[in-house]
């Protein structure tokens, strides 16, 4: 647990985590204005065609993260986890809304992203992002260990039970990440209108979120074990 906590301390200063939060916030802000959506995405480093669908958007997001971390020589495992969590959260929250609509229509993905630009919408996006980040973080520490416990006399009877455990871990981190949801919307609304969301403010927000998450996991761990 100590190592995992030390890791979270290191993650607070991670450029990849801060950039992922920064991009998620600004992509949602960009979606508020249809006429400048593409241009604003380009300014963030996301190159998308004129009528982007969810796949255009997440592909561009992933490439923009890769490029930024390569150019700033700041690639770390935290950054990889943040990049994957951001892509997965965007896919999960915008994909189902736009999947059944005409692919040639630009509105689906922009509208779906726009829905995430409200106080409540961004709270949901942040909740999903940090849930996934924490699930990846915990599984990162556990993954090699867990496979040793599959089989007879073991925690997991077969690979399916192992997969179910990973699902439950997702539920666990999703519940813990509610603590982030509670204030993410407020931070987003306040920052957006008062000072703008800068990289330093995104970094500070991400660091604070990790502190809250760490404390929440500690409390939940203690409570459930007791």
């Amino acid at each position, binding site marked *: *647990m100590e*190592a*995992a906590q030390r*890791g979270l301390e290191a993650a607070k200063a991670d450029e990849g985590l801060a950039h992922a939060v920064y991009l998620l916030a600004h992509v949602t802000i960009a979606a508020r204005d249809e006429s400048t959506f593409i241009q604003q995405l380009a300014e963030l480093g996301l190159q998308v065609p004129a009528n982007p*669908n969810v*796949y*255009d958007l*997440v*592909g*561009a997001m*992933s490439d923009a993260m890769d490029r930024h971390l390569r150019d700033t*020589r*700041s*690639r*770390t*495992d935290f950054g*990889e*986890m943040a*990049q*994957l969590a*951001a*892509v*997965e*959260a965007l*896919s*999960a929250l915008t*994909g189902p809304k736009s999947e059944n609509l005409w692919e040639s229509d630009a509105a689906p993905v922009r509208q779906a992203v726009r829905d995430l630009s409200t106080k409540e919408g961004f709270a949901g996006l942040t909740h999903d992002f940090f849930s996934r980040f924490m699930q990846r973080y*915990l599984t*990162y520490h*556990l*993954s*090699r*260990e*867990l*496979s*040793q*416990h*599959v*089989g*007879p*006399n*073991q*925690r997991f*009877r*077969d*690979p*399916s*039970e*192992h*997969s179910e*455990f990973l699902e*439950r871990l997702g*539920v*666990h981190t*999703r*519940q813990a990440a*509610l603590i982030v949801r509670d204030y993410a919307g407020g931070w987003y609304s306040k920052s957006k209108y008062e000072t703008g969301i800068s990289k330093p403010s995104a970094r500070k927000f991400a660091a604070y979120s990790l502190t809250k998450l760490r404390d929440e996991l500690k409390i*939940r761990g203690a409570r*459930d*074990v007791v």
Partner: protein
Amino acid sequence: MSSKHVILCGGATLSARGGDWKQIAPVSLAIGDGVHDVHLHLHDLTKSMSENPSDVATDLLEIAAFVYAADQAVRRGGKSEFEYGSKWRRHFWIELPVRQPQFWADEKIQGPLREVLTFLSDDDFEFHFTKLKKPQKLDSYLDFRTGGVDSSGIEDVMLFSGGLDSFGGAVKEIADGKRKIALVSHQPTTKVGAPQRKLVEALNKHLGGTAPAPFHVQIELNKGKALGREYTQRTRSFVYACLAAVVARMLGKNRIRFYENGIVSFNLPLSMQSLGARASRTTHPQTLAGFGKLFTAIFDRPFTVENPFLWKTKTDIVRELKTGGFGKLCAATISCAHTWERTNQHTHCGTCSQCVDRRMVALAAEMGPEEDPPEMYEADLLEHAWTKPEDCTLVERYVGTNKEFAALKTPTEFLSKYGDVAKALRHAGNDPKTIAQSAFDLHRRHAEQVNHALVRVIQTRAQGLLNNKVPTNSLLGIAIGLVGNAPVVAAASTNAQSPAAAAAAPLANQTHYGKPTADAGTFTFYYGYGSCFLGNSVEFRLAERLAKSPGVFIGIGKLMEDVWDGRTVQKNTIAKTACNLRRKLKDATVTGITIDGGEKDHYRIQAS
């Protein structure tokens, strides 16, 4: 966060360097034949191919050789865990004399070079090119053939490792397409080179002159024994691509092809620890697109690097080989990664990831003993008892991940669980939506093929399973959860050393609640495996009251009495409280339960 290393190539000296680099002891590399040297020889070319060698092509060969050597000469820091990649990633400062330093220093070349190398290896590269004082002639690296197939009329250039996939590609090009092809093989050791030659000879014999004989070029690029330290070799496909691209340009061609099944090309990580390039990206769509971009810049003409098998599984490829009558030749292909350990009796170890995949595919494609002889594997995939932790993870997750793939329903669900897929969406030659759909279909098909094979194998080995003759820590034992005599224990919770085990400990001991339960001690609502902390709130009191009589409608009068302490509140207040409770349960992913307001002025909690 990466370790810094200075590489001095071909007698280069330190150029003006600042900061931390001055403190670092350099690693010196040279091309030659000694134990400390990088060895580079291109065999079986024709004289006509080397008539007009360009300086840039010769430089590219040497750059590839030095990158390959540097990759192996500098260790990544072992398998230390929980260092978050700081030991895995390296930062190279490479001093490299070339014939055309200005050309290579141009950002139009350096940019794509760094980009593709970083994606492949997770390492940062800084190149400093200087003028080479005594350049070697290209001929000094070449051996010329004295007979056999000539290089005229070659239509395409493809990489040929001698494994199943590249053999499938050669058959597709030569036997099906009736095309004259240059097969370019990297020969790291003679143990690899000899089987490659034998396979080409066997293919020619099988074809019996019905198709153009291939032009086979073997390139010996390896390092002296004193240099080899790092086994991961993430830049190896950069070397293969450079060698093939130079051969292609010698033949006047602007395209090279890798033939590799899509599952290996995407190489989605089986374990969460396999972040970044720890899951190798040898023929990942972004890698091949990066090579194309680099060679286009270097050769100043459109140059493409393709993988025609990107949307095929290995099982698809093997089935096509069988259908075409090439099944028995598959026995001469070699897929094993541990070539240096192999013997004539056992050409495959049976335990590396390539062997696990090959053997499973052989079962899926129903290859017979003449096509994939079981005895050529030192370890039997199905009944070998796995003991090393990394091997257990490989096998257990191979089975588990394929089960997960099979359960996926849509491309966005795939993308929202495997974010790595996004790294290919803009690099596979089609629009991202089509690529996402194709990748989803590919992985689902692979999962179905593997799962189907497992079911069939379990059926055929039922007797052994019934008689406890199959080791419980074998793939078969793991796959079906063979139960021994000892009681099942919660191992994850007993491992005090595991740093995140404590964080996940609640899961190891997680209780399943068959009935909705509101715990007034913790203000938490439980149902199934889910829990939702509601705090000391009206929502908690409503949940607590409803949970007392699951399935029974409670009137709002009774609710006012029990939840609002007898105060009269608006119907709307109760409705809003119920709505808040539903939202909180949903956010906490407490599923299988609903707050039902379906009867006028009544509410109940009900399993859904």
